[in-house]
């Protein structure tokens, strides 16, 4: 097992390295660089930038170097915790990203948990009451949920909360805490604001999970081992949860590897709508202003989260389903 985990980690590192190349390349793809957008902004406001000034700035930011060299400087810094310099914020990237990324990871985990907490009971009800009014309602709502982008859901929620109830759900903290340093009171205040986003994204994600879980539970309910257990004299409720539900969980555990990336992208978009200081809005802004190192670093960490998540999903599956066995050599380590 230990060897298996080690192997997964090595794969993850290689994957991250490939991701770093691809994301760097993609970020460099648009014509121009950060200075182009600065110059454009300056010219719009009427001031002129001389060629010499521009060259000096280029050198200062290292933008005169070829791409591969800049990539190399940035990625080698990773080893010592130096993620490069943000042009736009004029600060080291490491100062900027830590807080939002922790928040992001925290939110992503909560979203996944809440998603399953919503989806599993609904799916169990839906599958055990197939074709009932409740099941049809669940099916209708989950299809609707699948078809509704999460940001739209966020906008509608905001609209309803503001116009009907006069509650402001945007932001991570109430106004009085905005500039305050982190404290218990601020944390408590955050917990009050977070659920909006978590519930919105979870509801959206749950729609898909319900579909998968309902289908797999319906399959399992028809299997012979269910009849065997019933013929043993096991009570219906215990039987349902001990046998078919247990087996129907497998596909949604392996689906967790897919749910996590979807969670992060949905969370990014809703965070923009809700004005949350997570990494999502920061990434979006950095991409628009071509703040290379900041955006590439955030992308790297989000990928890291996803890879960790899918590794956890794989390991969970091994624990839950004895039919999935690691190769002997991998178990013995």
């Amino acid at each position, binding site marked *: 097992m230990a060897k298996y985990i080690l192997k997964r980690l090595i794969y993850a590192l290689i994957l991250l390295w490939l991701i770093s190349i691809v994301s760097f390349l993609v970020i460099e793809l648009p014509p121009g660089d950060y200075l182009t957008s600065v110059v454009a902004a300056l010219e719009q406001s009427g001031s002129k930038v001389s060629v010499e000034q521009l060259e000096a700035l280029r050198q200062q930011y290292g933008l005169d170097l070829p791409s591969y060299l800049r990539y190399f400087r940035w990625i080698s810094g990773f080893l010592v915790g130096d993620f490069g310099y943000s042009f736009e914020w004029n600060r080291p990237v490491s100062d900027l990203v830590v807080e939002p990324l922790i928040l992001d990871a925290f939110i992503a985990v909560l979203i996944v948990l809440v998603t399953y907490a919503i989806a599993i009971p609904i799916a169990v009800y839906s599958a055990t009451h197939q074709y009932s009014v409740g099941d049809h309602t669940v099916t209708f709502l989950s299809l609707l949920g699948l078809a509704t982008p999460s940001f739209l859901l966020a906008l509608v929620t905001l609209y309803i909360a503001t116009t009907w109830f006069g509650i402001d759900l945007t932001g991570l903290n109430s106004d009085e805490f905005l500039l305050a340093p982190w404290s218990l009171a601020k944390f408590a205040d955050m917990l009050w604001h977070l659920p909006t986003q978590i519930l919105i994204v979870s509801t959206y994600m749950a729609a898909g999970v319900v579909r998968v879980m309902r289908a797999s539970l319906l399959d399992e309910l028809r*299997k*012979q*081992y269910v*009849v*065997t*257990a*019933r*013929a*043993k*004299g*096991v*009570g*219906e409720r215990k039987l349902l949860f001990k*046998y078919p539900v*247990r*087996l129907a969980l497998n596909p949604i555990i392996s689906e967790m590897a897919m749910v996590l990336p979807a969670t992060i992208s949905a969370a990014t978009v809703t965070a923009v709508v809700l004005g949350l200081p997570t990494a999502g809005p920061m990434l979006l802004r950095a991409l628009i202003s071509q703040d290379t190192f900041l955006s590439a670093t955030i992308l790297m960490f989000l990928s890291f989260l996803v890879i960790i998540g899918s590794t956890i999903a794989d390991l969970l599956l091994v624990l*839950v*389903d*004895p*039919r999935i066995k690691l190769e002997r050599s991998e178990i013995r380590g």
Partner: protein
Amino acid sequence: MQELLSIKDLRVEFDLGRATLNAVNGVNLSLNAGESFGIVGESGSGKSVTAQAIMRIVPNPGKIVNGSIMLNAPGGAEQGSDGGVDLARINTRGGLIRKIRGGRIAMIFQEPMTSLSPVHRIGDQIVEAVMLHRTRDKAEARDIALHYLERMQITNPQQRFREYPFNLSGGMRQRVMIAMGLACDPDLLIADEPTTALDVTVQSQILELLEGLREEMGMSILYITHDLGVVAEVTQRIAVMYLGRIVETGTTRQVLKNPRHPYTKGLIDSFPKLSGARQERLQAIPGNVPVPIGLPWQCGFRSRCPVAIDGKCDTSVPAMTPVEDGHMVRCFHNGDTKEPPLPQAPAPRARRSLFSGGRT
């Protein structure tokens, strides 16, 4: 001999919405304690549904619409409990049926590959049954489970106990299933095609084991099978089913040596025999079992019968008629008694009109 189970005029229907499928169409059956009984028939004869009805595990939308299934008290008066219980009327979600399932009647199924849970250890699956019916003590339950694994001649039971079904061959899994059934010391074991999915050599091993344990434990076994070989080997009495009715019943010897119903004769002729001179081609029964939906009131076998009597077999249903001691047959060639037509059942619920807005 003491009667353990008595089925009277059992009817099971599947309401398919547009039509009603009459899977079991008035079955009468009596099973003695300690007896080995076989129900023989093709697919679609209603033999499995009969077995499922006893356990009350008829799949949806099947319903017992008539008849009784009396399960008599174990050991009769000595247990102090009077009378039995009518399984046909019992609440299928109640506590009583759960005590009977597994405890007094155990069932093993055709597909050893799928009838065990793939993600639970074999030992735990047996222990679960034992702890439901025999003991609350986990260590004792474990000993009982191991004991029966051993009895089923599973090699290295200690190790098998911790394994999962996918580690085992089909024959081994069926042994585990049987061990699970026997572990609660039931009065009746229903074996629904217990050897159909197995190799021939494994088949006879398992049948021998079952019969040995039956004699030793004093339980009854109800074999549900299409395989005359199984029936001939292990049962004392049999009933031949066709289209939801028993068409011939008697001791195994009587029925196989002296079949009186054309269907039984056809079944025997279509079965290869090892003894004696090489036979000519096997005789298949022409045609197929009709689907039991909206069938006319006539002998069920008429459409395939080589000796059907016009004007008789197509207008009435023959009743079970005794031909020897304990040997009964449902055929007009063996007597003239007719089955009284069904009391016009509560007029098959007047067809929903197009305008009543029912589900279509």
